[in-house]
């Protein structure tokens, strides 16, 4: 005991010495508060702070002092990120950490998130146990993700295939009625027969493959307050229907087959349909056009539509007459965003944009893809009998290399047809000669709007805002 006291005394002395030194040499000292105030903050504030720390930092606070010993065990949010493993990527350590934290934890856990960038080495039984434990702890937000960098873009990851690491969610999860957020990666969805929906689920994100689209559709329609639905599907997705009265935000990426029937989603504000095309027959395609256009007409709150260019073929075939399509966009409609347009499709893009007669912002990115039909003739000779009366902002990302005449023609069209245009941004990362060519064009084209400002960005720092 005496030894301990002596040690403390020495420590205190050295601390004093240290302090003295600091006064002379550094400005940092005035940062130190006179009293220890952080330890006595009310728990809700401390919880708020600790939840923002990486979990290992929160656990390390246990050694600060006696007051701190058991603070972290009451954390309301548990977020595990495998970044603390460093380069070694020892997944066993992550698994151990999760067990350790869950076992030590007291009280309710509102949020449990697990991110790992590795191919998950943990076995299904670990997941099962964690989910069992969390479902007994009235979990509200559950997120199990294997984040692959590729997953963040709408292009589909090649590393995943339906035969790899399928995990079937334990049935206890389907009885978690407090769930408001659910985000899971690579799972098999098999709700038990007794499942009657998640009453409080607001946000559902599935980065997965779906064995049966009916399961997905029925899962969505039994979540009465669902507002955000994000589906990143790694395999062919059969046509399906979405029914969700409160759904505002829909993001679907994957190999999709239309129609995705959206008739029973009156609250939809924002739709993103991105991804690759499925091989489908001409017959199916014909039917789909009508479906999607009809559906879009029914969405009276729609503000933003964000699509991959191949959806254009559903919306509008180049030999279709626009006037034949009876389409009334929502009066709130503002933003149309089209990704990876094949140059030959620029004409089609104009026709689509003109369908959305009240569009205010148009974002287009072009890609130099191989084209099978000769559209250039169409684009040159034809000026649609409509104009973009409300269009104010346009951003066009030009393709790198390829047929630039078409792109210039497209820009010319937009400038000539938009009387209210305020700003047009052209992003171009091509050769110097081509940049000059584009700028020459931009100067000479007739503009319907006297106030239009044109911005030429010579690099591709501009990216579409994704999800």
């Amino acid at each position: 005991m005496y030894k301990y006291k002596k040690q403390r005394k020495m420590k205190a002395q050295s601390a004093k010495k240290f302090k003295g030194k600091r006064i002379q040499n550094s400005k940092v000292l005035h940062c130190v508060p006179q009293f220890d105030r952080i330890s006595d903050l009310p728990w809700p504030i401390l919880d708020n702070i600790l939840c923002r720390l990486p979990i290992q930092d929160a656990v390390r606070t246990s050694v600060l002092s006696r007051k701190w010993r058991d603070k972290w065990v009451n954390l309301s949010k548990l977020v595990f990120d495998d970044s603390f493993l460093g380069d070694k990527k020892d997944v066993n350590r992550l698994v151990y950490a999760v067990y350790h934290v869950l076992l030590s934890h007291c009280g309710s856990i509102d949020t449990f998130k697990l991110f790992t960038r590795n191919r998950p080495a943990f076995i299904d039984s670990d997941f099962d146990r964690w989910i069992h434990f969390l479902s007994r702890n009235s979990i509200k937000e559950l997120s199990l993700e294997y984040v692959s960098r590729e997953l963040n873009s709408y292009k589909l990851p090649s590393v995943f295939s339906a035969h790899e690491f399928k995990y079937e969610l334990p049935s206890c999860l389907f009885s978690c009625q407090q769930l408001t957020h659910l985000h899971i990666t690579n799972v098999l969805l098999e709700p038990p027969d007794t499942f009657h929906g998640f009453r409080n689920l607001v946000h559902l994100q599935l980065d997965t493959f779906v064995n049966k689209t009916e399961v997905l559709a029925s899962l969505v329609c039994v979540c009465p307050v669902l507002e955000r639905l994000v589906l990143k599907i790694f395999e062919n997705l059969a046509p399906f229907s979405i029914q969700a009265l409160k759904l505002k935000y829909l993001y679907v990426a994957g190999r999709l087959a239309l129609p995705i029937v959206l008739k029973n989603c009156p609250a939809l504000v924002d739709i993103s349909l991105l991804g690759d095309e499925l091989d489908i027959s001409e017959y199916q395609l014909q039917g789909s056009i009508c479906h999607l256009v009809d559906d879009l007409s029914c969405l009276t709150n729609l503000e933003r539509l964000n699509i991959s260019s191949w959806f254009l073929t559903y919306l509008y075939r180049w030999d279709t007459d626009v006037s034949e399509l009876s389409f009334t966009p929502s009066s709130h409609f503002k933003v149309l965003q089209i990704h990876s347009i094949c140059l030959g499709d620029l004409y089609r893009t104009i026709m689509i944009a003109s369908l959305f007669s009240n569009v205010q912002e148009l974002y287009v990115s072009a890609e130099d893809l191989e084209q099978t039909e000769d559209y250039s003739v169409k684009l040159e000779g034809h000026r649609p009998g409509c104009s973009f009366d409300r269009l104010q902002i346009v951003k066009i990302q030009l393709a790198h290399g390829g047929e630039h005449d078409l792109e210039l023609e497209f820009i010319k069209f937009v400038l000539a047809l938009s009387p209210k245009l305020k700003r047009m941004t052209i992003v171009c990362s091509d050769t110097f000669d081509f940049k000059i060519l584009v700028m020459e064009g931009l100067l000479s084209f007739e503009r319907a709007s006297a106030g239009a400002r044109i911005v030429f960005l010579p690099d591709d720092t501009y990216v579409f805002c994704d999800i």
Partner: protein
Amino acid sequence: MAIMYALKSSDNEIFEVEQKVIEQSETIKKMIEDGAATGEIPLQVSSKTLAKVLEWCKQRQHKTVENENDDNKGKRKKERDEDDDIKEWENKFSDELKADKDVLFDLLLASNYLDLPALLSFLCQLVADMVAGKMPEEIRRMFNIENDFTPEEEKAITAEHGWAFQP
């Protein structure tokens, strides 16, 4: 003409503030709605802290007003500049708080009491950023926390949570 309210700090200083500015505080908003706020609104916050809170609220107020007025999003460049201005202001604000941690803690308690979620989460993030990645000894020094463990106890706790202490 904007409706003004008088806030009275715990040390009896009066602050005249626009309704829109103070309505960011759920606590004050409720007091006004309940009709409890006739005349001066007494608050359990010191004048020094209250001045700081209002500084934050006014900055936030500018931000929201500008966004409302800007119904067309045409001024992307301008918006970016404004975002930069706000960032710069926030950095200066946080630097001051880091330099005087007593003000930081007063502000934390005040934002909790006044129910200002945006300020509260800003401050909590600030403290979290100060703590993240630091070793216990550094954190103790930063906040003047006294280590009342014996070295043996400390060692035992470190061993218990070994995975979190590994580099």
